[in-house]
Structure formats: structure tokens, C-alpha cells
């Protein structure tokens, strides 16, 4: 029965992760899903993914009433919604085909602007890891090996240690063509990219994968709650807390502490040129917290009397470093100089499997400098000789971060590598470029 279904599979299934191939495959077999993808991409391009005005493909977003322009959680949830929809409605026969499709979607989303929203790629990788786990998990429980590398797997001399990765990348292109012709029982030494279990056609896989995705969705729904629960562990009575700019996570964290009758003072840096700090201060004051706004140049001056610095994250990197809004590094260095602990409050969906190879340019973006200096104020001859730049983010070294408070617990930067191994599969780390 399986043997007869395999030839069909060759023509109907996606054979490469090339974004163009994914699109043409979707348009041929699943035009509705392609339309959803297009809609998602348009909103991504327009930067409207984080706004709540539009209904998502799945309706998930209706629950979140955020007005902030940088609600990464919302972006993540809408991405999961999209993936869930596509995975649920498209035809694929086994884990390997699904992974090829997901990787293709990851590349597609990266191309249309996903690099500005690293959370999108993170969640694609997260779903891929879930698929790998489900595809490898045989009912007998024996096949626990999902290709994870450890000293144990070296001891067993498992194929992932013996096979050289360069061979793997060479054979990657032809392995997908082969998968259609080769019987599902691939042997251990074959050049297939995925473990043999991934090529076994399993009709129940869709069900278990959807359940795994639902778990991720539930986790995302609980992100703020889990972080807020830890607020009183970190904010103590009478403390002076410094925070930088506007962050929904930190705002809710501080308010949660205040609601539990902790009295403390918050110093908010205004975060020029976007001045998110003003909005943040307003909202904190409204919650009855003693709030002070300072301009960014005064950070070092007030640092001496600060007990703790709270920072938000744009992305958490594999070495435990942090990408946060521009100016955060200054805060972190000021705190480091005064031996003030720097605590980063973030959901783990911002964890990126990448290293800051480009230093301050990592995941950074330059936006219009109109906020730095008003164009009408500068005479034309000056404008031509002055360069104005407005970077959005800062990279903060792991040495300057004391603790990450996340929805799954509190960790030192040196522990981040471990979370990465739990969240993503090492073979999916590679960029979607």
C-alpha cells in the first residue's frame, strides 16, 4: 500500500526548500494557503503585523489588545497561526517533507523582511524542532535520538558524529529527489539529510504535530503571566529601578510588582529619539508607581543610586548577549561600572540561534534620521555634508548582563546555550538567508 503511494508523492510533494519552489507548489496545490501567506507577507512588509486592527489568519490576535508598535509576542503568535494553518491544510506525507516545507517558508519570510523581526524565524525553527521530535518519536520509545549532539552520542558513535557535515551539505540537494524514489526504509549510511524515521509515511503525524504546535501556542499565551509571577522575586521594597524606554514586558512586570503592594521607585530613561520612555512613565504613574523620567545623558549620573536595571530585549543571542533598543548598551555599561545588576526581562520566543558576528551591526537596522534632526531645521548646504544615522538597536555583551528573567525561569547568560538546545534543533540553526 505504501509502495503504491510513493510514486504519486514524487510529483505532488515539495522537493526543495527554495522559496520560489514553495510558492509554486502552494499555488499549484493549495492556492488558499498561498493567499494567506501573501496577506501575511504584505502586512509584514508594511510593518503592520504587530497592530491589532487586522484580524489574523487564525483569529488568535483578537485577544491581545496591544497598542505598542513593537509587540513581538503578537508577531510570534500570528506567525504560529499562519504556520498552523499551512501545516494543517497542506498535503505532506512524512516529517522530511514537512521540514522541507517549513524551511522553505522560513526562507520566504526571511526574504520578505523577516530579518527585521527575528521572532518570526525563531518560531519557524521552533515548529521545525517540534516536527523533528514528533517524527523521530517512535511509539516504542527506543528511538530517542533526534540527532542531538552530546558526549553520550559520541560514545555510541552515532551517525551524526561520524558523518561529516560537508558531505551532508553536498548531498542536500539530491537527497530530496532521492526520497521520492527510495523506499521509506532508508538505511543508516544513506546520504539522506534527515534520519530514516523521517521518511516513513505516518498519517497520524499531522495530528501529533498539531498538538505540539498547540503546546507552543499555549506557552506563548502564558508568557506574560509566567514572567509577572516572578516580579516580587526581583523587585523589593524601597528599591530604585532604572529602565530604558518603552517595553510592554517590563511595564507589566513592574505593574505586577506594584499590585502585590511593593513600593519602589522607577527611573525611566526617555529613549530618544523615539521617546518611548515618556509613554512608559505615563503608564507606570497611572498604575500608582513612583516614577521619574530622566534624559538619556543623565543615565550615568543617576546610576550610583540605582539598585537594579531592567532592560527589554529585541533578541537574545546564542552567546548570552542581548540586542535591545539603541542606548541599552550605554545603560548596561553604566550599570557595570557601578556594579548595579542588569536584569533582562524577556519571553524566550526572542531567543535567536545566532552569534553576534557583526558586533554592533548584529540584527541592527538604520531607520530614517528625521527624528534625530528635523529636516526643515537644517539648511540645504549643511544637510549635504552632515551624515545623520539612526540605528534602532544596540548589542550588549553577555558580561554586562547579570540575569535573564524569562517565561521559563531565570538564567545567567552563560546558560542560554542550553535553552537553545532545548528549543531548536542544531541542524535548523543555519540562517534562512
Amino acid at each position, binding site marked *: 500500500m505504501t509502495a503504491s503511494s510513493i510514486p504519486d508523492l514524487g510529483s505532488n510533494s515539495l522537493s526543495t526548500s527554495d522559496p520560489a519552489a514553495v510558492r509554486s507548489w502552494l499555488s499549484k496545490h493549495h492556492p488558499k494557503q498561498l493567499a494567506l501567506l501573501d496577506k501575511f507577507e504584505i502586512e509584514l512588509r508594511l510593518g503592520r503585523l504587530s497592530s491589532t486592527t487586522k484580524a489574523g489568519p487564525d483569529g488568535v490576535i483578537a485577544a491581545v489588545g496591544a497598542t505598542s508598535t513593537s509587540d513581538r509576542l503578537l508577531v510570534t503568535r500570528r506567525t504560529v497561526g499562519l504556520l498552523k494553518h499551512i501545516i494543517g491544510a497542506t498535503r505532506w506525507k512524512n516529517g522530511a517533507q514537512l521540514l522541507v516545507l517549513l524551511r522553505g517558508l522560513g526562507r520566504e519570510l526571511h526574504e520578505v523582511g523577516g530579518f527585521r523581526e527575528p521572532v518570526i524565524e525563531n518560531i519557524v525553527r521552533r515548529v521545525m524542532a517540534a516536527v523533528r521530535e514528533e517524527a523521530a518519536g517512535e511509539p516504542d520509545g527506543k528511538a530517542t535520538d533526534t540527532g542531538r*549532539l*552530546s*558526549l*553520550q552520542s*559520541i*560514545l*555510541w*558513535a552515532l551517525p551524526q*558524529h*561520524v*558523518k*561529516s*557535515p*560537508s558531505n551532508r551539505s553536498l548531498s542536500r540537494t539530491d537527497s530530496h529527489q532521492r526520497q521520492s524514489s527510495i523506499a521509506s526504509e532508508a538505511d543508516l549510511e544513506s546520504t539522506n539529510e534527515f534520519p530514516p524515521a523521517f521518511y516513513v509515511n505516518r498519517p497520524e503525524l499531522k495530528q501529533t504535530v498539531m498538538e505540539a504546535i498547540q503546546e507552543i501556542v499555549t506557552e506563548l499565551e502564558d508568557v506574560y503571566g509566567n514572567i509577572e509571577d516572578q516580579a516580587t522575586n526581583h523587585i523589593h521594597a524601597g528599591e530604585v529601578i532604572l529602565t530604558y524606554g518603552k517595553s510592554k514586558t517590563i511595564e507589566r512586570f513592574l505593574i505586577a510588582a506594584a499590585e502585590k503592594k511593593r513600593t519602589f521607585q522607577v527611573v525611566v530613561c526617555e529613549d530618544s529619539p523615539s521617546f518611548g520612555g515618556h509613554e512608559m512613565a505615563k503608564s507606570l504613574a497611572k498604575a500608582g508607581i513612583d516614577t521619574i523620567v530622566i534624559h538619556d545623558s543623565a543615565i550615568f549620573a543617576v546610576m550610583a543610586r540605582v539598585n537594579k536595571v531592567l532592560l527589554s530585549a529585541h533578541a537574545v543571542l*546564542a*552567546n*548570552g548577549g542581548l540586542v535591545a533598543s539603541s542606548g541599552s548598551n550605554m545603560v548596561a555599561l553604566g550599570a557595570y561600572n557601578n556594579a548595579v545588576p542588569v536584569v533582562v526581562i524577556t519571553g524566550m520566543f526572542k531567543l535567536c540561534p545566532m*552569534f553576534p*558576528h*557583526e558586533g554592533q551591526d548584529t540584527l541592527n537596522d538604520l531607520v530614517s534620521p528625521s527624528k534625530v534632526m528635523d529636516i526643515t531645521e537644517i539648511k540645504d548646504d549643511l544637510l549635504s555634508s552632515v551624515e545623520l544615522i539612526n540605528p534602532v538597536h544596540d548589542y550588549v555583551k553577555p558580561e554586562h548582563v547579570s540575569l535573564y528573567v524569562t517565561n521559563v525561569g531565570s538564567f545567567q547568560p*552563560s*546558560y542560554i*546555550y*542550553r535553552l537553545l*538546545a532545548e528549543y531548536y534543533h*542544531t541542524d535548523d540553526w543555519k540562517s534562512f538567508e
Partner: protein
Amino acid sequence: MTTGTSTTAADEIPLVLQDLKKHLQSSHGDDDNLFDKSATAMPVAAIKALLGVVERSQATTMMEMQNELKQASDCMMNAATTSTDGRSHSIAVRSGCELFLKYVTRTFLEELPDFEQCRQAVLTRGERFAGISLAARDRIADLASDFIQEGQTVLTHGWSRVVASILLQAASTKHFDIVILEGRPDAAGARAAQFYSQRAKIPTTVVLDSAMGYIMDTVDIVLVGAEGVVENGGIVNKMGTNALATCAQANGKPFYVAAESYKFARLYPLLQRDIPNVGNIPMQFCDTTTNTTKEKETSFAPVDLSSDKVKVENPPCDYTPPKFITLLFTDLGVLTPSAVSDELIRLYQ
């Protein structure tokens, strides 16, 4: 029964060492070929030698087998400690042997009920170990070459095949410079420089070991290999590595270590003298100066230190504590030093 075991093991001992030598031959037989890709690393050679012990063993119980393996590995470690080629192999042998003993125990405890079947399982799996060395180096090169960026200057110390793989892979896509310390006493750095500049065509500068402080502000990253990685994430490597790491941190330069994970050893040195070093090697240097220039101006009269008034110390390795290490590039991934103990604990718990 016990006496019978010890005699068979005693017969094995010379064989184990022969095996070890044989497995290492590919790397030592041909000195010219510095970058022999097929070369077997010390821990892997030790594992292969122990496999030979299992193969020849007459043991009928697990305890007997373990005893024999223990004696064989002790023997190899002794031999490694007394070798005088200027490199400390004892840590590498130790990590290889420990891994293998753990592996055998695991197989016998968890796998099959029958002793003979277990032995066969150990042997068949063991054959795959041969590929591990090479695959690990490829994987590390894959992971780590991105850490070298276009136009950077990389400072390295000593000769390491892993480091060489990384640098070669990086050089295939970008331009960068190498600065390498001369590497006394065996001039390992100078030899490596020849390889990098002539074979790999990477612009290479050699400086004196003592010039590391002078050169440090011109380099972007420091990358070294390791003889062994100890439990706290520190490393044991060629003499001078500790000074280099200290210097790198003082100058705010990242200090990276490339090492295969089978070099992880259950060792917790607190002081430099805690690492198992080779005995007293007489101080002698490989002279890297060429005699083409006018000899009177360049060469200095040799100093005779053979008088008993001066004490000479010449250890081959030093210990670099984890606080100086930014990241470790291993085949298990890019790890922080604290991750090393994590991996070891998970294996030996």
C-alpha cells in the same frame, strides 16, 4: 580467577602501547605533512587501542573486562606522562580512556543480557570511532569559521589541526591576517606559520612569544586549540596560552578555544601545578633564526645553563582558567566554559 585476569592483562600491556603507537603513526610518521587530515587524535587513538584490548580479551565477566581495560589505560597514561616530545599527551589519553570505559560500562549495563553479545556490540560500534576525529574537525570548522570576519587579524598560538581547519575554511571565503607566536621551545608556531603562508596563502606574521603584549592591540580575535579541556571549562594547552588569555582579556579581545569534545577530561585543576605535566625536560630550543644574515650582528652567544647554580624549568603545558575564555568551539556546538561541566556531568552522572 583474579590472578588469571591480572596475568592476561600483564601480557596485554605491551600490546596496548604498540597499538597506541600504531594508531598514532599517521600523524607522527610523516613529519613534513603538518596538516595530515587523516591523522588520528590522541584520545581517539587511545580509544582504538582499548578496542584492541576488548578484542583480545579472554574475560568472561564484566568485572574482568573492566579490570583489564583499567590496567591498559593506566599503562597508556604512564607512557604518555613519560614521553619526552614536549607535548603533554596524558590529558588527551586520559579523556579518551575515561570516555571509553564509560562507554563499555554503559553498553554492558543497558544493552544486552549476554556478555558475548555485548562484547560484539562494543566492537562493531567501536569501528565507527575512526571517523569521529575527522567529522568533529569538519563540524567545528563549519561552526566556527563565521567568527572570523573579513579583514580581521587572528592571533593564534601553537599548532592545532582544529584551528587550522577553521582558518582554512574561513580563508576560502574571506581575507584575513594571521599573527602567530613563535612557540618556543619546539617552534610549533613558526612551523604553523610556514603552513599557513605557503600552503594556505594566508598573510602570516610570526612574533616572539614574549611579544604577545606588544602585538595584542593590533589583533581582533585570539584563537587557540587545546590539549585537553578540564571540567570547569578551562583548558590545558601549549605553554604560553595562559599568558595569552590573560593578555587578551586585559585588552578586551575575545579569546576562543577550538577543541573536539572527546578532549573533555574529568580534571579540576586549581593551580598550574595541578595539571599532570611531563617530568623535567631539559631546556633546549629549536632555533628559528636563519643564518643568511650577517652572523655577527644577529646571533647571540649561547648561554650555558648547565652549571648547577641555575634551576631550569621547562614544562610543556599550562592551564588557562575559564574566566579568560570567551567561547569554546566544539563539535557539540559553540559552548560557554560552564557548558563543559554540564556536558561532563550529564555523561558521568
